């Protein structure tokens, strides 16, 4: 555990902070001007309709029946399948919608309600949630990243303004939340707050509470649960006084346990009237019968499915068991490493590894789930810009079939171009003589992170070449997916190619990040105090 260096005195680079944040928000609104998923596509529409429908249900039906199939609540039509906090959020927005425009949330009558002013209202709800939960968390984390470091390690990616802009401009989240329409920013924002309390404030109780909130907003946050659990558990064994060992551990553990349990009770209280209610809720959250994956996901099961049709060989239960074993096996090494050699940087790496393991191996994965991996990677970006940037590009790219379906091709390209440009600006600021395409060179970027390094290494050159080819491949795949009509017998071919391509990358990244975690020493060099005038 490292100590923070002089927490009270710090300066923050603010040169481009305000314009950058406004610009990031502008980009969100530009994307929001495009159609959402299922725009004018009856009868089922898409995620937008799902969110609107939940508002309708939560406003007009009693709490206990939200997750039940009743005459008023048809679970076949976008039934609730997120935890209660999500439902409360829907209720809150539904009440506002009911006040502004009652037609938009009228029970039954409002299905498929598509009005431009209502679209604007819904976009505003996402935007405000994003601003409130996600953008603030990003800002705090980036400020912290600059303030705790000694001067030598203050390279350009640690500058508050640049890291905030890069974080906020990550295209995947913008496109999914503001284009496709979802509220990932809330759960991810809560998750970021929890991480912030761990890596910056070291307040474990608050971290626990925020993580429980995140978990209760989307059950997908379970991907991050293991590292949090392990980290917090391990922290209970730290700083044990020589006497009264046992009571100290129990005391620390109890504090966290009480926090978790009381949060759960508060959030789930309306559903605790009967046991039936809770079991129904859990069933809704973990639908085994929906199959191992939907559409084309860049994980191993989809990859294997190309050769062996998994659905014919295994039943869903068998499949689920296999997934569980595989996921556990993949996630365990980095968890054990975190437990034995705990430190804060490892914690972020462990978040990446575990969530990536979940993404590759677990059951019922969507392509959007990659966001759960991408956000920790974006968190890690200042430490290892080259690989993280590459990963983030691939992660956005892996969702391309989804964006094509929603008609988000132009925003997809534009947000990526903007993201690459800002990254390139960062490189340029670190090395004034670099040009636009310098970001392909791993050596150059490595020199930003380690200024003492002077020689170019062969491995880095190899990596740069790989990145370059992978980038070219992405461009060709985009061109192919957009312009070449797929053969009639294989309509999914472009999507499949994209998912296999991304899957190969993800596996390599999984190995890479695991290697990074294992090679990181337990005791970080203590940063020297920044000199203050």
């Amino acid at each position, binding site marked *: 555990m490292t100590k923070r260096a002089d927490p009270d005195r710090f300066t923050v680079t603010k*040169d*481009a902070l*305000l*314009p*950058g944040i*406004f*610009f990031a*928000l*502008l*980009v969100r*609104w*530009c*994307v*929001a*001007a*495009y159609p959402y998923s299922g725009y004018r596509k009856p009868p089922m529409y898409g995620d937008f309709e799902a969110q609107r429908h939940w508002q309708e249900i939560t406003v007009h039906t009693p709490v206990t029946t939200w997750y039940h199939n009743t005459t008023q609540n048809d679970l076949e039509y976008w039934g609730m399948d997120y935890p209660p906090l999500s439902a409360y959020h829907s209720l809150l927005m539904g009440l506002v919608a009911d006040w502004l425009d009652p037609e938009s949330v009228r029970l039954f009558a409002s299905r498929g309600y598509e009005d*431009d*002013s209502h*679209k*604007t209202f819904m*976009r*505003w709800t996402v*935007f405000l949630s994003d601003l409130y939960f996600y953008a603030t968390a990003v800002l705090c984390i980036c400020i912290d990243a600059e303030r705790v470091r000694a001067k030598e390690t203050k390279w350009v990616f640690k500058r508050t303004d*640049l890291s905030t802009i890069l974080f906020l401009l990550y295209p995947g989240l913008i496109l999914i939340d503001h284009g496709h329409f979802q509220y990932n920013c809330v759960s991810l924002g809560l998750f970021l707050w929890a991480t912030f309390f761990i890596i910056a404030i070291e307040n474990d109780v608050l971290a626990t509470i925020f993580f429980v909130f995140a978990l209760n907003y989307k059950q997908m946050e379970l991907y991050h649960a293991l590292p949090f659990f392990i980290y917090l558990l391990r922290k209970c064994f730290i700083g044990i006084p020589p006497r009264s060992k046992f009571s100290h551990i129990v005391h620390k553990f109890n504090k966290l346990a009480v926090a978790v349990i009381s949060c759960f009770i508060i959030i789930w209280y309306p559903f605790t009237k009967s046991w039936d209610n809770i079991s129904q809720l859990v069933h809704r959250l973990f639908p085994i019968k929906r199959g191992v994956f939907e559409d084309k996901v860049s994980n191993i099961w989809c990859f294997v499915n190309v050769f062996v049709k998994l659905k014919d060989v295994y039943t869903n239960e068998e499949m689920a068991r296999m997934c569980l074993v595989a996921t556990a096996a993949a996630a365990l090494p980095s968890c054990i490493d975190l437990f034995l050699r705990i430190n804060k940087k490892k914690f972020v790496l462990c978040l990446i590894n575990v969530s990536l393991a979940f993404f590759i191996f677990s059951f019922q994965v969507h392509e959007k789930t990659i966001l759960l991996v991408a956000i920790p990677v974006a968190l890690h970006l200042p430490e290892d810009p080259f690989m993280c940037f590459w990963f983030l590009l691939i992660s956005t790219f892996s969702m391309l079939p989804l964006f094509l379906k929603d008609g988000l091709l*132009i*925003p997809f*390209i*534009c*947000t990526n*171009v*903007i993201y690459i*440009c*800002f990254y*390139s*600006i960062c490189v*340029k*600021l670190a090395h004034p003589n670099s*040009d*636009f395409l310098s970001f392909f060179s791993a050596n150059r970027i490595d020199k930003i992170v380690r200024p003492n390094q002077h020689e170019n290494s062969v491995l880095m050159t190899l990596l740069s070449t790989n990145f370059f080819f992978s980038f070219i491949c992405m461009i060709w795949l985009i061109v192919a997916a957009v312009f070449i009509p797929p053969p009639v017998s294989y309509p999914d071919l472009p999507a499949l190619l994209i998912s296999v391509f991304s899957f190969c990358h993800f596996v390599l990244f999984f190995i890479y990040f695991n290697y990074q975690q294992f090679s990181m020493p337990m005791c970080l060099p203590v940063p020297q105090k920044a000199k203050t005038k």
Partner: protein
Amino acid sequence: MITQVVLIVTAVKFMFIPLYHSTDFEVHRNWLAITNNVSVEEWYYESTSEWTLDYPPLFAWLEYGLSIVAKYFDPKMIKIENLNYKSDMAVLFQRLSVIFLDFVYIFSVKSCSNLVSNGKLLVFILLVSNPGLLMVDHIHFQYNGFLYGFLLFSISNMIRCNHLQAAFWFAMLLNFKHIFLYIAPVYVVYLLRAYCFTLSSIDGVHTAWYSFSITNFIKLAFVVVSVFTLSFGPFLDHLNQILVRLFPFKRGLCHAYWAPNFWALYNLGDKLLVFLLTKYGINIPKSEASMTGGLVQEYDHSVLPSITPSFTFIMTCLSMMPALYKMWCLCADRRYRPICFIRCIVVCATCSFMLGWHVHEKAILMIIIPLSFLSVLGDVDGRLFILLSTVGHYSLFPLLYPKDLLSIKIFLLLTHVAIVFGNVPALYTVETKATKKRRRRFMRLPMIGPFESIYIYGLILLCVYENMLHVAWGLDKTLPFLPLMMTSTYCALGVFYFWIKYYHYFLTFNVSKVPTFGQGTSSYNIRKSK
């Protein structure tokens, strides 16, 4: 860094493609159709659509060139009968044509910013990411970008003392869009003084009349006349028809949405007087004056005397005179010529904006764009630029009235304002111990005074009122045009203030204070500002 900035701005422009576009889209589509289908002589007679061709010939030629490409996108687009035709391909083509023509603007900005030593990147970013152009060209739909590109080319050539090239670019510009006639007097006076008189004098009082060079004058006349011949030559027989189309004085004093100029204040005064007089029981002859009604038509003021086009014309000329005279004097010294020239463009553009007949709100860009360039060259220019860029761009908001564009325009403006407020003052503040110790006063914006700060904060209130309170209080049924009137008069106050201040500054400074190119006022590291 310039590549990145250009790419970012272009990416944003691309994202605007499917957004709302105004009737100007149909106007330009119709012109594509006219130039492609009708023979050259008929261009200015064709009137199937109500949007007849009313730009000078070079613009028509440009449309002709575009229409050849347009065929490959969507051949139906260039049929005259297809009124209000918009397929996806047509929209894509028109938007792309604006985006690609904008590269002319970007090149010109590059050539201008290269002349600045201090804040080179800043001026590049300020000009390229100008929210007014983004809103007017890429959302509202017009082709202003490359026209301002021509203007900037002309200015940069003027600074480099390539007077003939500057004259050429400006003559071209006039033949693309005749609204730039407003600043033509500056060119005439400047070129006469700086190019036709070969001797300069330091004191600026005496003009060396004897140094008038006939050769230079003939060269200049040749350039200008040849451009005009090239443009109007094919239409010699129809000159009258063209002039009728180019200068339609049938329109009213103000546009449907009052541009924030002197006449907006004048109209407001008229309205207030009517209100007061009726309240005290004095009867006024009622004229059907729906000044804020959507239609462009002539109307009369009720209490105050009505304004005629010739009156505004005379007023505009009179208001420009002192500035032109001052420029004549300042031009005597070679070192300070170029900067006086740009300042005089700003002053004259403001004069015509304030007092002109049927001024469009978009014309404010003619002030803001040269002023953006000046903002890195002198602290007073910078200070007033901060004020005007905020107010001027805000006054463009009513152009994009659909509700879902509100957030886009707000954040466009905020991004630009943040760049301006963050970086322009940094050019002029020298870090000393005294300034470091002095804490910035609460809520005071950098570089500008307390009242100006309050005025700018007032814009926020105005925005909130317009978009939330006005509807929430249910006033949108009874007073639908009140927000528009408030915006235009409130902004008119700001522009008026700017006009007085800047005019005063231009008339009163003495030569020794003028900064020149290549000299910074303070050390300033180029910062990344976007």
